[in-house]
């Protein structure tokens, strides 16, 4: 793999060409905040804008999202400039206005010195008021799980992840990867009496034959078996008792 040298905050690093700035920075102990990016999800990133940094290249400077900006020869990145903080504060203030009750956003905003929002706040009870519409959930569903049960619907401020027509989805396997990946905990997944409820649908859970804990939805077992040909009996026991 071709390597290039890149300067981040005045320090020079060797990095694989076209890797993203965010990962190169993190591996070298330089912190850049992020929300919508997950290294395991190819299409993730670019949406929340909290990882904006200065990219200096070819005599030109612009703000770019570190999570998907490719490292190339001659690139110099600055992560800690007045401009970066000014724009990051603006983004966080808007996110806080959108999801004022989100703990994650409140903390991130506070670390940039924002406690109060000057703009109209969106307030309400349901998941929308924790969701920053970053699409990480739908990207996980499509690219990691491979089932395409949810997608981003609507546009503008109404944009949200949803199953088709907000009805229980037939293809959803109830795996909960979306809820796990969500940076703001906006996806509700509840379990009671061996039944998991997510995206308006109830999923029967398989219980571990040893400890009796319901640990995986039956639909997920079916999906894995159909995709991998793995022996169904493998799922009789939970990971702790295999």
């Amino acid at each position, binding site marked *: 793999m071709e390597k290039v040298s890149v300067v981040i905050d005045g320090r020079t690093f060797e990095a694989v060409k076209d890797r993203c700035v965010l990962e190169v920075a993190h591996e070298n102990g330089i912190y850049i905040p992020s929300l919508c990016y997950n290294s395991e999800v190819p299409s993730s990133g670019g949406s929340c804008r909290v990882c904006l940094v200065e990219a200096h290249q070819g005599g030109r400077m612009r703000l*770019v999202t570190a999570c998907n900006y*490719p490292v190339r020869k001659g690139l110099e990145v600055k992560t800690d400039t007045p401009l970066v903080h000014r724009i990051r504060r603006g983004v966080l203030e808007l996110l806080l206005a959108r999801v004022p009750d989100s703990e994650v956003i409140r903390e991130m905003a506070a670390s940039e010195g924002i406690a109060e929002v000057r703009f109209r706040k969106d307030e309400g009870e349901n998941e929308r008021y924790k969701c920053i519409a970053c699409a990480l959930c739908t990207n996980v569903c499509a690219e990691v799980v491979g089932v395409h049960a949810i997608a981003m619907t609507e546009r503008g401020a109404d944009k949200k992840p949803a199953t088709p027509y907000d009805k229980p989805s037939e293809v959803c396997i109830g795996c909960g990867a979306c809820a796990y990946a969500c940076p703001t905990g906006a996806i509700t997944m509840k379990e009671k009496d061996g039944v998991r409820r997510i995206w308006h649908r109830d999923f029967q859970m398989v219980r571990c034959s040893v400890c009796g804990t319901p640990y995986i939805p039956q639909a997920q077992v079916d999906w894995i078996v159909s995709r991998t040909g793995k022996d169904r009996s493998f799922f009789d026991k939970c990971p702790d008792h295999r």
Partner: protein
Amino acid sequence: MGAIKSVEQLEAYRRELAAAARPELPTVLVCFGTGCQANGARPVAEAFMDVIKEQGLEIDVNVGIKTTGCHGYCENGPLVALRPQDILYLKVKPEDVPEIVEETVKGGRVVERLVYRDKATGEAVARYSEIPFYRHQQRIALRHIGTIDPASIDDYILAGGYAGLTKALAMKPDDIISEVERSGLRGRGGGGFPAGTKWRSCVAVESDVRYVLCNGDEGDPGAFMDRSIMEGDPHSVIEGMIIGAYALGSHQGYIYVRDEYPLAIRNLTAALEAAREKGLLGEDILGSGFSFDIKISRGGGAFVCGESSALMRSVAGEVGEPRAKYIRSVERGLYDKPTVLNNVETWANVPEIILKGADWYASIGTEGSKGTKVFSLVGKVNNTGLVEVPMGISIRELVENIGGGILGGKEFKAVQTGGPSGGCIPERLADLPIDFDSLTEAGSMMGSGGIIVMDEDTCMVDVARYFTGFLVEESCGKCTPCRDGLPRMLDLLTEITEGCGGEEHLAMLEGLCDLLTWGALCGLGTSAANPVLSTIKYFRDEYEAHIRDKRCPAGVCKALITYHIDPEACTGCRLCAKNCPQECITGKRKEPHTIDADKCIKCGVCKDVCTFDAVRIS
């Protein structure tokens, strides 16, 4: 005839067409652009057919077979042009047709009441080319529009069409790119990126597959430049794309057209079919060994799909959302292959550049912006419509010479250029040359070429609010600054127009503008601050009047104005009282009336109907 198999055969075919043509015969050209059709061009065309059939006249009437594309002077439609006399009739009705045939077609005389009349001097101008609206234009992209039948490939070939292609096929692909580079042609879709540079960087990327795309997703309110070209001269776009594909080594092209343009889709589809039949598209074009074809991809009406990366996703069948363009589309575009995307007007210029040469093209326009540009000139001017002028013409020349000045003799206040995310330029800068760089420097942009002229009755805060509202509706919602910032911006602007704005509103607006400009993902978001930034820059006093004095100087913002009747001017005719939907105007006949301000909804009907100018706004 079937497929044309060589350049020589095409030229022979062109000569055949020329020999059969009889330009000396009277010809009636009925504009069949969308505007004229909406105004009733079809019954006019049918009336011509009927009269001609009835009288057994041996003339070549452009009806049914040879109706033309848009002449651009749409507000005066239906337009009928007559050749060889070079006469243009405006607002023609079916009942005018027998007279036109009798007087003009047969007698060669002008029907005075149908010709253009100068609004200021009252002078009649019958000759097409002498009407001020046309006289100052220079048509390259619109070269055939209004004179040829878009449904006839023969008409296009007879007018010199596909000669650019035959010349290109004899050139080395690299030389074609050099020619486009030297011409200085810059993208007409809004970005103004040099087309030749784009092509050059695309061929530099190694790949087995390349695509050429045409952006026909014209979404700016009031803009119809690309529509007119696709509807009125589809082959010019197709020819441009074939030349581009040959230069780039591409074998597949797509034209992305919004589905709201049914006539454009119909005419393009027919033109593609005709080009294929003639051997100008498909395998082994004109025996050159080069193969290329074009498909039409229909857009579903999202403004953001005019943005290049969203457009490419939409063509590929994905959701039309932009992506970060850190890796450019010339490297990784449609289906991750090197792709050149140019807009309709850019492609339509290419055949002429190849045919007449880069030097000819570069001799037109300004140092940094070569050639001509098509504008849709709308708003408070006397003549509205589609105009093509050399780059570098001043805003004032455009408004006064071509537009014929401000409607109703009012004061010229500003022009808004560049579509919804463009900016407003005040009258005091009206001598600014219209070119890519000057407009950007002034805080606006060329965009795709929309020019909205505003008079003294326009409130600039209200204008900013209107365009921001449009962008709120059209934001795809992918990135935070655009999705959540634009609605907040609209909140602030609405509060100001409602008289609830404080001093902090301006600072907050400027903060959001800063955030959008630096932080948004795509061109829609990064340019979305322009309406607000430019109006604050040039009309800050108007913002301050709304905020400090709770006053709308232009008398537009409803919350800040009241209607009242001047007792001196009112004759007590009762007209306003009869028309008031709130029934809140009282007064005896022949005595001054009064408006009950508590009930008044400020709809302005009273002001519109008053013939004595007695209704005032304060």
